[in-house]
């Protein structure tokens, strides 16, 4: 009996925490249906009418889809570049024996230690000099190269698990370097590549610092940058800001709901040993 009571209490505590995790999102959601005036009066209650003007003006007046599209383009391009370079070099680190391999590998990984904020100023000046400030290409380069050490780390440790016999078999069949990658490495490392792809996309989509500083023209901005911009302009119209936030968050929530399996596994892949 006491044990059962204990279980119920534990369940209630966990439920309470879960509610407090979801509440801020709920708060964000319900207030998108309120007028600014109603929000000021009562920000906690459910909206009394289904007021959709925030959404309408976000589409009509602010053309939110432009920024949505920008985010989509920069995030996906960077993701493709990172995976392309990452797969090839991780294959080399995992399966090719070349000089100074270990040292180069560790040196690449140790670059993860340097935070973006430390390199921000020289990078800004660098992109200005090569004329890529206010060009989405700078974001694509920065996103893709910035996450390379991380991608190499994940993919290399995964590719090491691929049996050498399979690679030998392809070579005996007369396969070259690229056949090996296409026929063995990619199919065998699929789970890790998918997990990495999801993480890269989420990370790129959510990035704020570079997105905000490298782009000046509004029509070229990413979702996060435009929201940051927007919240300073519309500081008194909280429901409008929250609607913008909802648009930024929804794709990530959908990805999380659909691909959660890969995400949780990607983080906890057993490596305590």
């Amino acid at each position, binding site marked *: 009996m006491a044990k059962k009571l204990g279980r119920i209490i534990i369940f209630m505590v966990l439920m309470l925490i879960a509610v407090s995790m979801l509440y801020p999102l709920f708060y964000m959601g319900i207030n998108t249906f309120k007028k600014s005036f109603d929000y000021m009066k009562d920000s906690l209650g459910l909206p009394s009418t289904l007021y959709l003007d925030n959404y309408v003006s976000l589409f009509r007046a602010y053309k939110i889809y432009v920024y949505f599209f920008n985010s989509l383009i920069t995030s996906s391009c960077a993701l493709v570049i990172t995976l392309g370079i990452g797969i090839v070099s991780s294959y080399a680190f995992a399966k090719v024996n070349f000089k*100074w391999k270990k040292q180069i590998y560790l040196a690449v990984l140790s670059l993860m230690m340097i935070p973006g904020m430390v390199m921000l100023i020289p990078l800004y000046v660098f992109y200005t000099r090569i004329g890529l400030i206010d060009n989405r290409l700078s974001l694509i380069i920065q996103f893709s190269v910035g996450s390379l050490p991380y991608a190499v780390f994940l993919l290399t440790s995964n590719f090491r698990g691929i049996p050498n016999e399979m690679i030998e078999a392809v070579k005996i069949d007369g396969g070259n370097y690229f056949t090996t990658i296409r026929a063995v490495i990619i199919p065998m490392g699929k789970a890790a590549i998918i997990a990495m792809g999801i993480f890269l996309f989420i990370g790129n989509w*959510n990035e704020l610092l570079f997105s905000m500083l490298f782009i000046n023209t509004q029509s070229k901005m990413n979702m996060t940058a435009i929201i940051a911009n927007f919240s300073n302009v519309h500081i008194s119209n909280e429901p409008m800001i929250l609607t913008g936030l909802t648009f930024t968050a929804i794709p990530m929530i959908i990805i999380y709901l659909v691909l959660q399996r890969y995400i949780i596994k990607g983080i906890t892949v057993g490596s305590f040993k």
Partner: protein
Amino acid sequence: MDNQFAPARVDMGRAGANYGVRSLMMLKQSASRGNTAQVNKRFFTREDAIGFLSIAPLVIPLLVVTIYPLFSVLYHSLTIWDGVNTKFVGLGNFEEIFLSNQFWILLKNNLILLLSVPLQLVVAFIVAVLLYEQVRGWKFFRSVYFLPSILSTVVIGFVFRAFFSYNGGLNTFLNTLGLGTLASDWLSDSTTAMAVIILCLIWTNFGYGVLIFLAGMSLLDPYVYESATIDGAGWFTKVFRITFPMLANVVEFFTVTTVIWTFTGLFGFIFSITNGGPGYDTTPIDYMVYLKAFKAGNNMGYACALAVILLIILIGLSRLQMYMTERSTKWSE
């Protein structure tokens, strides 16, 4: 070699810095041991060529976009710089930083923000222990707790700002309870603003801790618990005498990761919740780099010097971690 990288493999870069530090440690070790792995390789073989060609698309961009900025920031920390003109001033910037009161305020803010780390650790550990009892729906709970990790820091930050601003949810709640006198502008007072940021960090990050603690616990030997139960150990004894010590490496990993994250990963939160204000009362060092370079007077040399100080703090933390790891392995031997 893989095993030296403890728990999580991927977590949106949050643990990246921690992995980076570990790699640097190992690089130093392998350098001091000498290059014994490759014996008697006199020629530049075909395999060497394949290897170098494969990693060229990785190494060359990294040299341009990471190594070059690193040296640039080190050099320009010794100059007055507006992005175009450079004037060498030696250690002038550092002198200015250390002699001003402002820097110590920034450092104090960093230290206050670090208070969130033990809180996250405690919450994450307790929740993980509760979930480990295989509560009904534990997978659901785990997913919900981890949810903030996939949201942008801007989204989280602005929702927190909305909730704690004067017309926001908290004050409305206090008014409904008839406690309207308690209502205030939480974000314009430095103490409460800091508390809101710390709350936000706990809210965002503890689910990540739960996830890696659960993964660590799943590898513990159930026999240890069984024999402890036979010996008459109670629930608390088991949790604090068995689970916690056995998860020492996971605890260390989470702590180090979160400490580094607190020094380097909070830009989005500070930007959206308080913008560093009131005054500079919630501005940590990394946010000041941004403010000095792009907001307050385009003072890029000074900002570079701050960035270098941040880097030195990170290196100091990693030395501390190395020292701690050595100590703990000595004890366990």
